[in-house]
Every structure is written in C-alpha cells, then in structure tokens.
C-alpha cells in the first residue's frame, strides 16, 4: 500500500501515504529544530535550578539564587522610600509655611502633586482642578470648609459626608420638597440669592427681592450668614462670589432650594499616606497662589 516516491523538486522521498492528493515528504527534521529544542530545554533546567520552580507537595524548590518576588518588592519599596526620604522627610516634618517658602521643595511638591492629584482627585475635580457641575472648582471659589492648609488637609483626611468617623457633615435641606417654603417663596429667594452675586440690572420687581430677602433671613441665614457669605464650620458656601457648584442660573438655584443638596467627598486617610496628603494639600494651595 505504501508506495514511496521521490519528489522531483526537493529530491526527498515521500512517506508513501496519500490523503485526497496530499502527500508527505520524509524530510529529516532540520538540525536547527533539535538544537533549539535542546537549547531552550537547557535554559529551562538552568532556570529551574536557580529559581523557585517545582512543587514538592507542601512546599516548592526555592532555587539556588534565593529569588523571592515578595521580598524583592518589599526591598525595592524600602529602597525607593529611602531615596525619596531626602526630601520627603523635610516635607513631612517642616511646617506648611516653611515648605512654601522653599522653592526647591515646592518644585518637588508641584511635580509629585500633579500626578497624585491626577490619579486621585482629577476624576471629580478635573485635571485642571476647575471642577464641574456638582464638584467644586479648587482654583477660584472661596473654600467651603476653610482655605488654610490645616483645614484643607483635614478635608482631604476625613472627606465630606463620608463614612469616616470624623467626616465633615453638611446637608442643605430640601426646603421646597419638604414644605418649609412655598413655591412662591422659593422663587423669590432664588431671585434674591442670584442677585447677591449678580450686580447686573434688576430684572424683577424690587418687591420680589425684598420678599426673597425676608425668606433668606428666616431660612438660610443660619448657615449661609446674614450677608450670604457662607460659614466654613458648617460647610455652607459663599453665595456672593461668582462661582457655583450646582449652577448659578435662576433655574439651578431654584432646584437647589427646592430639592436640597448633599455633596460627597471620600475620606483619603486610609488610601493615601500622611505625606501624600500633605503634598496634595500644598499642591492645592499652590494652585491658587498667583505666580
């Protein structure tokens, strides 16, 4: 049955098998194949001898080099910490004002602060820290919880309305929905709040503003202050500046008054080290410093 033929092109014999017209040559396996099979096998055996490789029941062969990825990582992390220690120790130990006064340290703060901010804060506050609807602009507006480095550091540590035990807590009530003010009162006070920051020509009858002011003093002033400039200790924003978290047009202000607001910011205490949070604090303060 097996009839070997010689292939005219290559000069090799076939194996004598044929399937649907397909034949096979009996060409010897090229030497290179054996060479590389042996070479890769030798490499593998050497690797097994040197590195952790084969299981032995409860344990494994550890290899002559004593290579262990866990301890290597731990060592490299320690080493990197040590190298960074040259400047991180100074940032950790010196006061905010001392660091701010040191251009070399501030260069490092700007450098590492940018990536820390980009990887942790930018998702909400934006890569340029200018925020967006629902997320405060960190570069322009007045601070809701205080703008001193200490206050900012505390906000980053505990978050706002977060599960952290010391979390900053703040809630604007749903004055309309919970029937503390009528629809007309809400409209009037919205008009009044808008006028606090918008010095443009009064479009509504002055009576409406006056009525709105009365509603404001009765319902809003306890948190936002009689002058509407807000209070840091309760997280009530300044209503007289031009920046808004949830929008400064009449409709948005009305929505805020009617449905209330309760923003959230996570606590970063368990996520970022004391040092990283201090760098972020300095970085955020620096963003607002005119240069």
């Amino acid at each position, binding site marked *: *049955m097996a009839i070997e033929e010689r*292939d005219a*092109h*290559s000069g090799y014999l*076939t*194996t004598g*098998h044929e*399937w*649907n*017209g*397909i*034949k*096979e*040559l*009996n*060409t*010897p*396996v*090229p030497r290179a*194949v054996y060479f*590389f*099979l042996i070479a*890769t*096998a030798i*490499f*593998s055996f050497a*690797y*097994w001898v040197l*590195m*952790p*490789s*084969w*299981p032995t029941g409860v344990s*494994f*062969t550890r*290899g002559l080099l004593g*290579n*262990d*990825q*866990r301890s290597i990582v731990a060592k490299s992390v320690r080493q*990197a910490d040590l*190298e*960074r220690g040259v*400047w991180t120790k100074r940032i950790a130990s010196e006061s905010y004002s001392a660091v701010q006064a040191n251009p070399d340290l501030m260069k*490092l703060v700007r*450098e*590492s602060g*940018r*990536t*820390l901010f*980009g*990887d942790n804060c*930018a998702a909400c506050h934006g*890569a340029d820290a200018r925020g967006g609807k629902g997320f405060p602009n960190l570069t322009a507006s007045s601070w809701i919880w205080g703008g001193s480095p200490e206050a900012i550091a505390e906000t980053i540590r505990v978050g706002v309305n977060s599960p952290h035990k010391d979390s900053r807590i703040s809630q604007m009530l749903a004055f309309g929905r919970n029937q503390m003010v009528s629809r007309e009162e809400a409209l009037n006070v919205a008009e009044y709040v808008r006028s606090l920051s918008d010095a443009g020509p009064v479009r509504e009858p002055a009576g409406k503003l006056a009525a709105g002011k009365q509603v404001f003093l009765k319902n809003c002033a306890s948190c936002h202050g009689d002058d509407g400039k807000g209070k840091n200790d309760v997280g009530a924003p300044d209503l007289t500046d031009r920046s808004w978290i949830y929008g400064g047009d009449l409709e948005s202000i009305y929505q805020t008054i009617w449905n209330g607001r309760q923003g959230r910011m996570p606590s970063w205490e368990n996520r970022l080290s004391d040092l990283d949070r201090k760098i972020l604090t300095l970085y955020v303060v620096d963003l607002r410093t005119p240069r």
Partner: protein
Amino acid sequence: MQVVADVIAQFTGAERRGAFFIALATALLGLAMAVTGNGDSFGAHGALVLAASIITIFCLIRSFDKPEPSSERLQSYYDEPTKAGIVLAMAWAVLGLFVGDWVAWLLVYPDLTFDAAWASFGRIRPVHTTGVIFGFGGNALIATSFYVLQRTTRARLPDQLSPWFVLWGYNLFCVIAVTGYLMGVTQSKEYAEPEWYADIWLVVVWVTYFAIYLRTLVRRKEPHIYVANWYYMAFILVVAILHIVNNLAVPISFGSAKSYSAFSGVQDAMTQWWYGHNAVAFFLTAGFLGMMYYYLPKRAGRPIYSYRMSIISFWGITFFYMWAGSHHLHYTALPQWVQSLGMTFSVMLLVPSWASAGNALLTLNGAWDKVRDDATLRFMMVAAVFYGLSTFEGSFMAIRSVNSLSHYTDWTIGHVHAGALGWVAMITFGAIYASVPWLWKTRGMYSARLVEAHFWLAVAGTVIYVFAMWNSGIIQGLMWRTYTEGGTLAYTFTDSLVAMRPYYMARAIGGLFFLIGALIGCYNIWMTIRMARVSATNTAADLQDAPVAALQPGE
C-alpha cells in the same frame, strides 16, 4: 428557505423523526426556562431557545412528508453542513469585526455609548471577542473539519442529523452568549463569559461533535490518520476539557442566569488562565493548524515538507502549551514557582511553534510562483508568517522581565491581534476561498481580483493595527514606570491615555480596513454561490472528490 427544505428532504425518515424530537425537547427546555426565569434574563434566553426550536419544528413539519432520499447520497461526501458553516462563519465575521471596530472607536470617543447600558465597553467588547473567536472561528473550524475529515479518511460523515445538530446547537450557544452580554449576563471570565446553562448546552453539542469525529475515523478507508485530523481532534478534545473545568459553577437557582464559580481567589485566576491560554492554544492554534495542514498543501499542490517535523511539532505544541497559562499572572499573588514553570514552558514552546510555521512555509518550496499569482494561497502563506511572528512574540512576552513592561498594556492587544487577524483570520479566509469553488462546484471564485483586494486590505489592516498597538503599548508601559528625579511617578494614568489616543485612532482605521475586506469577501462568496446556481448543470468543474466507488458510505 428552499435550501432548508432541500436539506430536510435529504434526511431519512428516522433522521427527520430524530430532528423533530430533539427540537421538541429543546422547545420544552426553552419553555421551562422561560417560565422559571420569568423576569430574569434567564427567561429571555428561554424564550429565545423556544423560538429557535419552534422555527426548526416548523421547517421540519413542512418537509416531513417528502419521499425518502435515495441511497445514492451515501456514495458521496456530505457537504451541506460545511456549506452552511462557511456562510455562518462569514456572517459572524462581519458581525464580530463590526463590533470590534465599534469598540475601537469607542476607545477613541468614550462618549459613544448613547448613555445605554448595553452599549458600554464592558458589554460590547465580549460581543466582539465571542463573535470573532467562537462565531467566526468556531463555525469555520466546524465547517472545514467536516470537509477535511471526510476527504482524508475517505469516509462519509456517519449520519446527516448529528452534523446539523452540532452546527445548529453551536450557533444557538453563540447567540445566547452575545445576547446575554448585552443584557449583562456574564461570568466575568475572559473568553468564558457565557453563564452555566449556555455552558452545559455547549458540552452536549461538543460531545456530539467529538462523536462524529470518532465515528467517521473508525470507518476510514485510509490506513493512516492525516496530521490535520490529529490537530482537529486535539482541538475538540482539549477544548471540551478546558470548557468543563473552567466553567464549574453553582447557579444561584435554576431560574436564574447567575452562578458562582467553583474556584475563588488565585485558584480562580490560575484556572481561568489555564483555560484562557489553552483556548488560544487548542482553539485558535491547533484547530487552525488542522485547517492549514489540509488547505495549504492542497492549494499549493505540494507534499508536506516533513512528516517528521509534523510529529515533533504536534506533540511539542500539545505538551508545552498545557503548562504555559500561568505566564498571564506574572508578578501577581500567584506563587512564583508557578510563574517560573509557565515562563520556561512558554520559552520551550517556541521551538515546535516555529517548526510548524517552518513546515508550512517550506511546503511552499516549488510553488512560490503560485503564491505570487494566487491571493488565496498567499492568504495561507501570510498566515503562516504571522503564526511564526506571534508565537515568537508570545514566548518573548512570557519572559517575566519582558512581561513586567508589556503586561496590562496595549502590547498584549497587539500581540493577540497579530495572531487573530494575521494567523487565524488569514488562514480561514484562505481555506474559505479554496473550498467555496470546490463545494459549490464552480471553476473558481466569482472574482479573483476581489480576493486580491481582500488580501491587501487584510494585510494592511493587520499591519496598521499591530504597529499601532506596539507603539501604544510600549509607550504606555514606559510611562507607567517613569519616575521623576525626586523618585515619584512622572505621569498620571490619564497622561498615558492622552498619549495613546492617536494610536487608538490608527487601530480603529486598521480594523476598518479588515472589516471592509471581509465585506468584500462576503460579496464575492455570495456571487460565487449565485453563479453556481445559475450554471447548476456545469459538471466540468474541478471536482476534488474521490472516485465514487472508493468511498466509505455513511451508516
């Protein structure tokens, strides 16, 4: 619909009754699923199974009273399932490639989701992967394996019902899979996303598939089993093992799509990547090597370069691949010794892989003029080259220190597509262009120039894609590990996304080329089939089949 009626008319009475009872059983199963899973996506899938079964029953009843087929049919190969499989493969190719390019554009324009949950990246990306791997690749493998099996054993498929059951059941599985993803049904295991009920169904289908193979092989008229069949068998057998083990899970109830894996933590990760890498090995490599071993020498008209090299490569590939999966988990919680084994076996794996690629390319010695002139054969040649390139890249990336740069980056995506577009899709297109004229008995494809156009679009698309992802991946990997002088990270993750954007655009354009090529292929195949119908009396076609008397008839 005439095509379906013709197929059923060829069924014997027993086969028609068998088909009817199977369809009735799946209809009842679908009904039960629809009832118990009411309100859950499980119920929606029940309705889908029920609908598919009812349509099948309807088709069966319409042709139930046709006269029994003559026994002459047993004297020729049974190629109807192969024809259907090729058409299905091309349909899935267009769907899978279209969704793939959509996902590519979604990464360029992340807002392209229309605010709809089903259109989010996490849901349409598996539609792409399942569509191309299982829909396109799987149908092509089933179709060509039936064709190759019969011709290299000189035996007709054992019966007419079971190949159709495999094809019907397999495509039902694929449809359940992709519709499930859009509804949010997933096991979250890469390339093994379908939930428990789809997995069980696939086991039934797959066992039938394997049985067809064995039943044909035992009746073979050839004394030896051809290499292509070793590979097809390894593909079927190992995929069954991988599929069953990785999908071991406990459903939360028999009325819910949700299940929990039998594995957890690092064991789960290891099982998944043992599965995942061997899916690459035995689905995307072994199966398509089977395809290559038949269509390439056949088209080139040359004997296989070396039978001995076929043997070494086959056993090398099957043995080494089994160990390689852990290279997907370098520098993770997976114990280091498992990583070492994965890495070293991946390095050794290069040798039999290159021996296979070499065996294919050396087979073309004496036929290189054909490679120059014939785009179909050129598809297969380029496939072998890309097979060599991506297996080298794979072994290289499995080395731990290389992997520390490449892992989690687009380099991996580029590597996968060098294999998937360059090797798997190209060998498949080559095999399809070769078999369509053989199957529909025409002199050749409708247009050789369109095959040529498809070839260059496919090559250009693949090269653009792969280069874009190499660049993107390496830039990404370097940006993630660049430190400032102060010892802190120099770039944010977002910085790396910004840097990748131009490459994402290039990738999406490369993918578009590939998709357009496949569409041209569909048109060409469609016109060839039409041409065959018009000249149905054409008997002078280059019939590849063995002489009628020399064939082992069906059971």
